[in-house]
């Protein structure tokens, strides 16, 4: 007999899912007119019905946010705002298990990740920004920086609650109010967050959540009552937003796609590098904008790294996201699964060599085995386009200069990784790389104090840290200061 892990399922009874949800506007849940289903991507079970936000819903939400901004939130001292943020952070910690289970059900990501990464980071973002609320004058952004007013925030499905935290926490800390639209396929934790706002007795209208699809998002972007837009999602939609706001005075931060280069030099700590490669591309099923989706190996260690990577990939546990021992969960939607399949087929057609470990995938739900393509070159589409799934493209290089050239030869510039035990090489490489986030001897590490954002088609602006505050504040002359 062998050591097989028996199922270790997290109980879903901790979270109560209603049969349908309205929008959260002015502190109350208000029913929508039309509904659409939200699924558990691991089973295709319909979890609930979500309201499809209309122009009138967005109008009401923006009006509520403007009223809350004018009457309450902009007049409140930073210290008082901070108290609300601390309260929200504590409630999120208390209800962490509930949020983790709900996120896993709605998104398909493993409970290990929601429990150990997503939800603790969500709380950390609120704690971090709570601390800034009464210290904005000392953030190095000039005297008395001022909020913009109503922020329209549109977030993706890959880290639903974490992206909400990245958006809502700095907006509230800086005195803005919010109209937020969660992604179509993952609205549930945002709606549970609305309950937390009620529990924390956050003044009505400070946070408004309108659910819906792309059209709802477009309505928010184009709404004249929105002063600042914060978007995380595809580069394609990001470009549309940039066009839409081009002739307005709306401010925007855009967190878009990426094709992160994970560069392995021949003096890298190989075993930990292999872990970092796995974490870089298979974390969250590869649904990570900053994923290390291009592995760029020094030729002299390429065979050894690939061999060890394959062995390591056979240990990846693909399966029920609620099982505490699952490493790789379900693909978030049928649409995304098709896209991953299509781009992988392109990789085959382009002559790259595909490899996946043997793993049995459930018939129900949306699944994709962890996959690597070797023999990839810069001219391959799978080296250029974002796959946004558990698919790694492996390239090689001969000299450090060549590694940097290949890493930078992309329209994106969000993340990069450097693996080397030589400090001077790490500093040299990080200066050359055109990427907003660079990790050395690790990958996919996040902290609210660390600014995050991209170069080139990966976006505008930074989120997190002091830089992230700046995106929500008028500074200098703009703030009315002399």
């Amino acid at each position: 007999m062998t050591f097989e892990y028996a199922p270790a399922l997290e109980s879903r009874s901790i979270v109560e899912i209603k049969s349908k949800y309205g929008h959260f506007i002015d502190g109350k849940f208000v029913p929508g007119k039309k509904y659409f289903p939200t699924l558990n991507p691991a089973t295709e079970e319909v979890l609930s019905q979500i309201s499809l936000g209309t122009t009138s819903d967005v109008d009401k939400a923006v009006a509520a946010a403007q009223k809350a901004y004018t009457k309450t939130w902009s007049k409140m001292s930073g210290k008082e705002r901070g108290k609300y943020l601390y309260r929200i952070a504590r409630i999120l910690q208390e209800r962490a298990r509930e949020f983790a289970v709900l996120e896993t059900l709605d998104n398909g990501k493993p409970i290990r990740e929601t429990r150990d990464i997503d939800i603790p980071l969500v709380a950390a973002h609120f704690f971090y920004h709570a601390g800034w609320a009464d210290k904005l004058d000392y953030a190095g952004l000039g005297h008395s920086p001022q909020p913009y007013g109503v922020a329209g925030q549109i977030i993706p499905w890959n880290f639903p609650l974490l992206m909400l935290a990245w958006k809502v926490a700095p907006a509230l800390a800086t005195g803005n109010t919010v109209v937020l639209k969660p992604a179509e396929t993952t609205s549930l934790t945002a709606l549970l967050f609305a309950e937390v706002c009620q529990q924390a007795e956050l003044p009505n209208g400070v946070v408004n959540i309108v659910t819906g699809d792309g059209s709802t998002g477009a309505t928010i972007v184009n709404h004249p009552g929105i002063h600042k837009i914060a978007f995380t999602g595809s580069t394609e939609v990001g470009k549309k937003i940039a066009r839409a706001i081009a002739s307005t005075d709306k401010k925007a931060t855009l967190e878009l796609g990426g094709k992160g280069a994970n560069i392995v030099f021949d003096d890298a700590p190989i075993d930990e590098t292999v872990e970092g490669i796995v974490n870089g591309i298979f974390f969250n099923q590869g649904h990570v904008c900053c994923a290390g989706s291009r592995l760029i190996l020094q030729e002299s260690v390429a065979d050894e790294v690939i061999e060890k990577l394959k062995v390591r990939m056979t240990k990846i546990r693909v399966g029920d996201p609620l099982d505490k021992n699952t490493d790789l969960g379900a693909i978030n939607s049928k649409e995304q699964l098709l896209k991953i399949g299509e781009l992988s087929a392109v990789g085959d057609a382009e002559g790259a060599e595909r490899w996946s470990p043997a793993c049995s995938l459930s018939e129900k739900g949306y699944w994709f085995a962890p996959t690597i393509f070797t023999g990839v070159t810069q001219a391959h589409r799978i080296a250029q386009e974002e796959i946004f799934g558990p698919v790694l493209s492996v390239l090689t290089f001969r000299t450090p200069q060549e590694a940097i050239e290949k890493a930078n030869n992309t329209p994106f510039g969000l993340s990069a990784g450097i693996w080397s035990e030589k400090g001077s090489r790490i500093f040299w490489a990080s200066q050359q790389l055109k990427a907003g986030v660079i990790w050395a001897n690790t990958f996919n590490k996040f902290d609210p104090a660390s600014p995050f954002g991209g170069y080139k088609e990966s976006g505008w602006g930074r989120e997190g840290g002091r830089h992230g505050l700046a995106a929500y504040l008028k500074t200098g002359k703009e703030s009315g200061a002399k």
Partner: protein
Amino acid sequence: MSFYGLVDGSEKSLKTFLGQLSGVDQVGADARAAMLGTRSIKTTSKRWAIDMAISMVDLTTLEGADTPGKVRALCSKAVRPDPTDSTVPSVGAICVYNDMVAIARTQLDAIGGKNIPVAAVSTAFPSGRASMEVKIQDTQDAINAGAAEIDMVIDRGAFLAGNYGLVFDEIVKIREVCGDRAHLKVIFETGELVTYDNVRKASYLAMLAGADFIKTSTGKVAPAATPPVVLVMLEAVRDFYSMTQRRIGVKPAGGIRTTKDAMKQLVLVKETAGEEWLTPQLFRIGASALLNDLLMQRMKIADGYYASPNYVTID
């Protein structure tokens, strides 16, 4: 001389070989071990793992106060860990000081424990600070008294001073003394080597010199068998197997006291070296208090409730 065709035993060849090993990133190794520590072992897998862990225990007493009576009592426990339940497997071995080997061997043979080997700690355990002659004599005595396994300590001072050749020669000499008569386990005292790079180097040094097992610690120094140290050693035996087609065993010892600790060790084995190492021939846990916690958890699974500690025997 050639050792697996990889080194010739000279200081220079050892330095070259150890120097080209990939480094260990401490943060990364800690993170991997911590992640594996979150594996949740339940129901059927827990039952299986508890029995496997019991059969891997090197039941140990290494005290100045050890007496023949204490050692005989430990032998009874080793053969029948739970006198009320014959389905409980025997432990992997008894581990004692050199002068207790004969007593343990005689006792085990007398009470139906012929298959349980006696392991003797050797080479001026735990410090390793003695002349080579003394270390050889120490080992010879233990084997003559019936020890089938020798747990030798390396000269950590020599290792830290970079005298790899000296450490290597000692292991080779003790290996010769053991011959076919005893299995050789090489103890690093990882709490004194401190860095994971050192643990990796010591692992290769011992394996190349002919160790059958590599062992973390004496149990006299903390920290001992921490999960990342064991992870690094399991990576070493895995990679050594792909170089030489020979499987070397791993023995964590020191600080593994609870069933949960033992489960984490088995998870490390499964997901690092692989299932092939999940056998008492290739993985042992040096412990004393651990056995009773395993027995209590075993009873809990069978009965559905935790019994008083008085339902397991103290030795």
